[in-house]
Each structure stands twice: as structure tokens, then as C-alpha cells.
């Protein structure tokens, strides 16, 4: 277990180390929150400012959404931590099935 290795047997040392670790993680999470707000603003601006063709805007805002969701998953939901192999398997299997479904449903109305 990853968390057991953190215990040196000296509670004071562990506490110091863990406080520093969680402060560091909090910093990453705040940075990802700022980035997520920023990406949201760009996406809304890309739609609010007229003059872009939808051939540019649609793929662009979808890309922004995907990047934002990656931040959410890896920093807010801790998928960047150790011990998330099974969660990754579950989630990406879901994404794969979901992507095929979306592909099928949106191509069936084109042809």
C-alpha cells in the first residue's frame, strides 16, 4: 500500500512530510482550477465573438472541453495518484464504448 510506506514510525516526521505533500497538491489543484476557468472563458468567448466559422469553433470548443475534463479527472479526482490503474481501466472502457455510440449516432444521420 502506497500510504503505509509514508509512515516512518516517527509521527512528527510523517506529519511534516504529509502537510507539505498536501499543500503541494492543493497548489496544483488551484492552478488547474484557474486553467479550467480560463478554458471556459475562451470557449464562451469563441462563441460570443461572431466571425469564426462553425468549422473552426466546434472542434475548437470540443478540444477545450476535453482538456478541461482531463484536468478535472487527474487533479480534482486524483487520477494522477498511484493506485488508479483499475479506475483508469473502468473509465477509459466507458469512454471507448461511449465514443463508438456517439460516432454511430452522429454518422447515421449524415448518411
Amino acid at each position, binding site marked *: 500500500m502506497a500510504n503505509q510506506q509514508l509512515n516512518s514510525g516517527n509521527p512528527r516526521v510523517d506529519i511534516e512530510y504529509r502537510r507539505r505533500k498536501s499543500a503541494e497538491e492543493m497548489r496544483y489543484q488551484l492552478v488547474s482550477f484557474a486553467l479550467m476557468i480560463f478554458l471556459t472563458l475562451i470557449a464562451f468567448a469563441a462563441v460570443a465573438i461572431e466571425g469564426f466559422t*462553425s468549422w473552426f469553433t466546434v472542434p475548437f470548443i470540443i478540444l477545450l472541453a476535453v482538456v478541461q*475534463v482531463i484536468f478535472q479527472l487527474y487533479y480534482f479526482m486524483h487520477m494522477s495518484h498511484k493506485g488508479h490503474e483499475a479506475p483508469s481501466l473502468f473509465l477509459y472502457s466507458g469512454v471507448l464504448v461511449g465514443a463508438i455510440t456517439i460516432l454511430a449516432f452522429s454518422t447515421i444521420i449524415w448518411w
Partner: protein
Amino acid sequence: MHADEKFTYETWPAAPEKSTLESKNKFLGFWFFLGGETVLFASLFATYLALKDKVPSSSHPLAKDLFELPLTFVATMLLLTSSLTSVYAMYHMKNFAFKKMMVWLGLTALLGLGFLGLEVYEFTHYVHEGHTFTSSAFGSAFYALVGFHGGHVAFGLLWCFTLMFRNSKRGLDLYNAPKFYVFSLYWHFIDVVWVFIFTVVYLMGMVG
């Protein structure tokens, strides 16, 4: 370590969300559920994309006639911020600060409540404009997708309030820490789905 053990700030484990066998199983099971939710929401998105703007007559409002950027923007900011407040709650949970965790959870729920209020206002507005669940295939697909997300928010609020109420006098231990953690995962996942809803439904609806 077992669920009923009393802890202090010094003895609190580094990963309280998976320090017992039960919580390890809970963690795994919940991620499996989130994988399933991904498929569920993806099929609702697929249905929406296939049926977008499929209306029976030219008098029926289309996506670009209905959606308004400011309302969607405020709702997005509320939900995004509530995701951050639940991150703060988990930060305090890991530091064994029960009261601070409860305060941030309360804030999370309030922001979620604000989001839900906006959604109710939005839906009643649409109904007055003739866009209902049964008015068109577009309407059915729209309310199924966005309404299902709103239902998830409502369930999340109920979950959050129940957790806070039930554990208000208990303090933190390895019995309830995983429960709070799993709730925060759920809440973040709601925000993940919303990111795609505001992009695919609202922003792409405005683009045409």
C-alpha cells in the same frame, strides 16, 4: 486499521479513503459505477446529437432561438466553483479537520443548489416558449440529457446533506472518511458531464 478506531491528527492515515478492506472495495466499485455513468451519458449525448433541431413544424423554437449565453455561463461558474470547494473539503478531510471539511461541503451543496435553481428557472422559461419534453424529438432528447444531469445534481445534494446530517456528531473516522471521498468523486463527475453539456448542447447550439 479498522472502521471504529479513534484517531488523532497524528495517527490519521495518509489515505483514509482506502485504508480498510471495505473502503478499498468501495473506491473500486465507485469507479466502476463512474465508468458505467460515462456510457450512460454518452448514449444520451449521442441521442441528442442525432435529434438536435428535429422539430415537427417551422414555428417550433430551435436550439439557437432558445439558449442564452449569460445564463449558461453563470450556471457553469457555479458548478465549476462547487467542484473546487469539494476539493477543499477533501483537503481538510485528509488533514483530519472535521469542522472545516463540513463547512466546505456545505458551501459545495449551496453552490449546487444555486445551479439547480437556475436550471429550474431555465426549463420553465423554455416550456413557456413551447419547447417541452413532448413538443418535438429535439425537446425529448434535450430534456432527457440535461434533465438527467440535473437529476444527478439533485441526487448529489440529497447525498451531501444526508452525509453531513448523519455524521454531524460522529467526527472523522475510517468508517465515514471513504463516504465523504466517494461523494466528492461523484460531485466532480457531475462537473465533468456538465463541461460536455455546456460545450455540446449550449455553445454548439448557439453556433448552429
